[in-house]
């Protein structure tokens, strides 16, 4: 194996890992704050991508103008969903998962009807490619790596350092105690959904130009995210990052040296065996 191939594979791994990390970020955040698995995350990702398509490609707006708009739009939509659908059954975690699945399917099917069946391309805001030690990466992917990292770290520091973040974490540890300290349950949930869905939309924004968008993209994404956050340890942001890169590396090197159609089999086997040995994932902690 020559050096530039190795470098290329590492670059591929980082690129895939960043995409997966970005996809999983919102999901793991919601889990860490509210202990729920929001299956419709995939649909939010899909809606974010379509919003980008409509703003940028259809209306011809500037990509950078679209970014905050899309995040705000989808985040608000998430908050509305939380208020209307999730709040009544907030304490039933299994019901929430089923509700998420139902919502995901609903939005996906409705997406096919509303947005049409054909995949839509989103023109890239970052054309061109970057050459690096004999390897190549397109700029749009490099941007995903950079913004993905920024998003992961700023979210991490938001949760760990900021007052609001500490409040959210206090809520995660003990909702009742947090309520007593004046942290409103309802506000935390709304905020959690806003950030979670906003992150899903961000993923849609950045990933959409790399791939093409279809209403079915969400289900695929949410399953991958599930795998990522499961392996990383539910609710752990560093864990999700780590496992995204592990899965990215297996996918990159496995595909390059073993074949594309067995790599995903290997990833599944790896996750199954790992979770059997360590039932809480890489960095997960046992929860009640």
């Amino acid at each position, binding site marked *: 194996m020559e050096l530039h191939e190795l470098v*290329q594979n590492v670059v591929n791994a980082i690129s*895939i890992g960043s995409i997966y990390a970005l996809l999983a970020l919102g999901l793991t955040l919601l889990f860490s704050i509210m202990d729920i698995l929001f299956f419709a995350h995939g649909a939010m990702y899909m809606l974010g991508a379509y919003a980008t398509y409509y703003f940028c490609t259809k209306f011809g707006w500037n990509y950078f103008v679209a970014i905050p708009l899309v995040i705000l739009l989808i985040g608000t939509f998430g908050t509305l969903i939380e208020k209307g659908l999730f709040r009544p059954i907030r304490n039933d975690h299994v019901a929430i998962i089923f509700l998420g699945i139902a919502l995901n399917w609903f939005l996906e*099917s409705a997406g096919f009807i509303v947005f049409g069946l*054909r*995949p839509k*391309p989103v023109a890239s805001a970052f054309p061109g490619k970057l050459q690096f030690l004999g390897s190549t990466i397109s700029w749009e992917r490099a941007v995903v790596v950079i913004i993905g990292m920024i998003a992961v770290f700023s979210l991490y520091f938001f949760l760990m350092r900021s007052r609001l973040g500490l409040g959210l974490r206090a809520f995660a540890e003990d909702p009742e105690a947090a309520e007593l300290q004046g942290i409103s349950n309802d506000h935390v949930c709304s905020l959690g959904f806003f950030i979670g869905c906003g992150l899903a939309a961000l993923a849609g924004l950045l990933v959409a130009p790399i791939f*093409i968008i279809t209403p079915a993209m969400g289900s695929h994404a949410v399953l991958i995210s599930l795998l990522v956050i499961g392996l990383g340890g539910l609710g752990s942001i560093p864990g999700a990052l780590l496992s995204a890169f592990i899965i990215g590396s297996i*996918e990159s090197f496995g595909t390059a040296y073993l074949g*594309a*159609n067995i790599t995903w089999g290997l990833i599944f086997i790896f996750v199954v065996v790992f979770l059997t040995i360590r039932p809480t994932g890489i960095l997960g902690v046992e929860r009640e």
Partner: protein
Amino acid sequence: MKMQRGSYFRRIIWVGIVVGLVLISAGAYCGDVTEVEIGGITSLSGVAAPWGIGMNNVWQLAIDEINNGGKWWKKKGFTVNGKKYNWKLKTYDHAFDAGKAVSAANRLINRDRVKIIFAFDGGMIKAFQPISEKAKVITVAYASPGKDYINPKNFYTWMYGIDCMAAVIFYPWLEKNTDIRRIAILEPDHWTGHTTEAASRFGISKTKLEIVFDDFFPADMTDFYPILTRIIQKKPDLIDIGNVDPAARALIVKQARELGFKGPMYIITPDIANLKSVAGWENCEKLYFAPYDTQLTEGQKYVKDMYVKRFGEENWIGAISYIFWDYAFWLSEAIEKAGTFDTTTVCNVLEKMKLKSIYGEPAYFAGKGYYGINRMPLYPYNISQVQNGKLVQVISGAYATYLK
């Protein structure tokens, strides 16, 4: 709640009785066939839905052409024993679920009493083939050809073979006319991908070309960087991504160019619009498109105009649309000739007919040498290449004579 189990039990029995009665009455309702229906089974939802809907639209166009008459079908309806008939299309969705495909076939054959089914994708066709063959229902398979379902045992299954023909025409031509020697094949890991790969291998086996890479990728894959890295490392002269679905195919083109592959690629039934918008036309340089005509035949123009007028430009699925046009006419003609709807007779007539194909004439059924039965139409075949941003027809009017 616990105390109420008894009443639940009774309620369930009631529900059972009611459901039974509904089914019985519905069963009694299915009476005589008053309209001649053609069944369709395709993917109207899910990932492959654009194709499924597109082909359903073309079927509809063809059937409307027969019913109302037009430039292609000059009379109205078709006549059997002096009586006029019209077709009616009834399509069900299989969403790439074999169970649903079987249900759809059962519905069409046993409830709607169709004699002809147009169906998409070999995997699904194989799932319901035992039913359709047993019921002697003519199945037209729009799918990659495979000996496992096109064979003398399956008398009523017909197909529109595009990939196999393309491979046996394309690769010998490639050997003779270019200095391309190293071929990489990349196909999705599902039924169509596998059969197309087999067809390409068959075509290449007739030449001295070398296969340097041959792999399948999971059907839902969107990031092709790793596998393209691997392919490019093998230094192929041409990448055969024959039957990858349009979305993934455009991504492959785009990502391969990003990774620095400059050579040609080979694509069957391209969706030019999609390639242009996703991959960019400048990235499509040197691509081979099969079958693709720089000059559309009159029939193709006619169908495309009609389609765009009725269903809109954005729903046009590209060159693949044409293959869904012909069979409705061939079958109507065969039924007229046979003078009966009896499918065995119709099959025998159809096999020997001279066909008028949208790709040009003459067309006729062949395939005995490969499948043991003539179930595949041969017609003149064109392959084009993008040269300096323009489509140039490099092969014109070829016949896949290997398969005779």
